[in-house]
């Protein structure tokens, strides 16, 4: 199945300059999607997840508009046509 990933501009360079990616996913969870993304784009994958596979603290992942931190986390289901958006959180100084 194909999941559409929407990236912020600051990460697009790590995926060939495109903010919209169509990612082929073998599994059916956000974890599967992020793993597929990391295999195809390792640098992009490292920006989103640390080496334990956890999404970085100040990175938010939305599945069809819902923050996965408040739903199923990495086990949140994705399906063909799902839109997954990656955004930096409000943080910094």
């Amino acid at each position: 199945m194909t999941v559409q990933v929407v990236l912020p501009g600051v990460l697009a360079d790590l995926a060939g300059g495109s903010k919209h990616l169509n990612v082929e996913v073998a599994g059916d969870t956000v974890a599967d999607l992020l793993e597929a993304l990391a295999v195809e784009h390792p640098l992009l994958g490292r920006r989103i997840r640390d080496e334990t596979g956890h999404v970085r603290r100040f990175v938010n992942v939305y599945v069809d508009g819902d923050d996965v931190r408040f739903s199923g986390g990495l086990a949140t289901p994705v399906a063909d046509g799902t839109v997954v958006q990656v955004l930096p959180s409000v943080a910094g100084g």
Partner: protein
Amino acid sequence: MTDLLAIGTRKGLWLARSDDDRRTWTVDGPHLLAQEVAAVSIDTRLPSPRVLAGIQYGHWGPTVMWSDDLGGTWNESDHGAIRFPEDTGAALARVWQLRPDTADRPGVVWAGCEPHSLWRSTDGGCSFELVRGLHDHPHRPTWQPGGGGGAVHTVLPDPASDRVTIAMSTGGVYVSEDGGEKWEPRNRGITVIFGPDPLPEYGQCVHKAAVDAGGPDRLYAQNHFGVFRSDDAGGSWTSIAAGLPADFGFPIVSSPITPGSAWVVPLVADMQRVPPDGRLRVHRTRDAGETWTELGDGLPDDAWVAVMRDAFCADDHDPTGLFFGTRDGCVYASRDEGESFTLIADHLPDVLAVRAARVP
């Protein structure tokens, strides 16, 4: 030859150059804008000097980057130069120290990181391997984070043996005599004020340690309260704080060429991390800490700023050059071992690390 000073800050890296024996400097940057550069080094063992930077992308995590053209372009490895092995369950939080080894060990670079860990590279810093001997030490679960996080922040490889000395906040000084397989704490005599036992075997908050130019067995340590010297490779430590206006501070720098010479920047206390009376001053010893001299020519009064543990370094000239940066983004240089200082940059972000080298 050009003198190069790499300046790591909370929001990027700047490079200062001098072509007139450190009299005047030009500063260019920012490089790696908006990235925290808490560790920096200049590896002059390579045909083209390599600038290594331990960076934190902010939202996007930490890694090591390097430039082989003095900041023109930057590289990083796809999968990250430093990654905790899966079985550790840990994730890299910050690179605190990047230390190229000697010319006799080409390609070897050490990294000290948060969480407490030591890493060794054999390819010039492009990839590192976790030093398992330290990671598996039974003390590790009881090392605590200091205010800045729990990290190995000092790595001192001995050029003439397999000894490696490290310092941690908190954890104290540990030494391996076999290149990193076995480790033992060497903190006898270093006091703590934050625990019931003032002289624990380990757990000290050593802020920085340095090796004297006279030989590998003489060490200095700026502690979280206390300045100490060891004459037996850390086996025992004695206070050398008498004569300083305060015994709190972060950096301690030893001369690369003159035995007995070292410098500190005293701050009032942990609850008051500013210079005494707001006078930014360097203190120098010429006799391994028996006496200290205040140095302030060119340094400001009414400067309520701190100098971080890696934001002070020496070069390898004779006389020794000194460089330090402050949390309000000023960088001072001395070409006469601290007799006088010149402001070479200001209005930078908080300075976290400086390193100097001579490059072609």
